């Protein structure tokens, strides 16, 4: 028995076609994401042996895998965006972001846990969360839903990590000196990140400029 026709989109499905990014622009951003996620998982992994706090070692082991997994999502997305050589796009958007990552990874000693965590979880991770949220909210929910799906996987992990790490950082800040150390470190790295324009370069989280927006 033939059923009566229905609208192809449910009345509650408000997804629209237009999106802000071309295929090329999407591939460019995704390549920068992969590069940055790699630096995050490497640094977290490398720090484990140098951090004496047992609970933090274990969390970094878990978080490092999250970011390796995110980098792999972007690695696999690149050929789907016509980039057949993913390595070519796996780059920093500019030398300023490379400088930011070098400074992010600079703390080394076993007395630098606070500096390590503030850099990673009060500067780098929030930058990732805001860039991914901007991307998710501005790309086409129909044509680019594979990118949205990966962004959402990443954001789920990132939001959880952010809360967990913030609570850990608060537990490490016990007096005015610690508070100052944390604030100084955050300011130093934020300044470098401003120079880079964000993890995907200028426009990482869009623009308020009347013409550009």
């Amino acid at each position, binding site marked *: 028995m033939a059923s009566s026709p229905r609208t192809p989109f449910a009345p509650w499905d408000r997804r629209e076609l237009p999106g802000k990014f071309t295929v090329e622009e999407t591939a460019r951003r995704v390549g920068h994401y992969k590069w940055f996620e790699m630096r995050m*998982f490497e640094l977290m992994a*490398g720090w*484990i042996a*140098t951090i004496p706090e047992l609970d933090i070692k*274990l969390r970094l082991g878990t978080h490092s895998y999250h970011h390796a997994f995110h*980098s792999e999502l972007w690695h696999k997305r690149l050929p789907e965006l016509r980039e057949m050589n993913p390595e070519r796009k796996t780059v920093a958007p500019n030398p300023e972001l490379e400088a930011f990552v070098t400074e992010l990874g600079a703390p080394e000693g076993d007395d630098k846990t606070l500096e390590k965590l503030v850099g990673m979880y009060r500067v780098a991770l929030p930058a990732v969360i805001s860039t991914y949220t901007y991307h998710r909210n501005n790309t086409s929910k129909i044509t680019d839903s594979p990118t949205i799906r990966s962004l959402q996987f990443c954001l789920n992990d990132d939001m959880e990590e952010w809360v967990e790490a913030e609570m850990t950082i608060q537990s490490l800040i016990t007096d005015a000196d610690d508070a100052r150390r944390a604030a100084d470190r955050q300011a130093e790295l934020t300044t470098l990140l401003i120079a880079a324009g964000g993890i995907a370069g200028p426009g990482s989280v869009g623009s308020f400029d009347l013409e550009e927006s």
Partner: protein
Amino acid sequence: MKTHISPTALARDTRFNRQTSEDRFTDPRSTMEVGHVDPMAEDVGDRARRRMHGIFVGEIQALEGAGRTAFDFPAGDDYANGEIPYELKLDMARQCWDEARHCEISIKLAEHMGGELGEYVENTMLFEAACHNDPVFRLAGVNRALEGLAIDVFTQMRDFGRETGDPVMVYCEDFMLADEVTHVKMGSKWLRAVTENDPERRKSALEFQRVVDGLFNFRGQRGEEYESPIRLARQFRKMAGFTDGEVDVIAEAAAKERAAIEAEQMAASILAE
């Protein structure tokens, strides 16, 4: 952060007491003898706690070692000049997550057994092997030799849980065993892939693996008999990419060492008479 840190750079809180491999092997007492965790033994509780603590410190170092390998070597295909495959780095990060869980599991199991963190000395042999300059040697020494040993130990602890009626121990050891089979498999796979065009490098890495295996024969205490303090889990080792021949080599080396020690002891007792 610099790459290739020294094994002594390992960061610990004040609860831990460290013993380097050199300290261990030059100790005139028989600290290498780990003893069979026999459910019927009078001191079974202490033996099991000691074993669980040994597992725990092995897990932290496995976590730290995998982390360093993910960090120390750039991704690329110039294997002769220190690059490693991107996918190998991903596997090392995955191993970090697994080892972090193993730490959590062994901490909780040790607490349940009445043990305390830092109660026993920590030997840093695993991390020392994980600091080798050549990533292929790390795969051979850590992923194949020492994680292979973890397969044996977890199989034995799972059986110990069965024999003592501890279902939580059986459940946890079985999951960890599955993870360790995966880690050894990673070692076998990447060792083969990275040395595909470099037979000399493969040969020396496998030689290093045999040296590490030899150091962990615990004075000949590895074997396939039930009473062996460390029982070789042949079936799971094969699942992880070991050949029967490779397991035979470990068993034979242990038997030889055991025979030599027994002969030494017999000679000493004859002399004493």
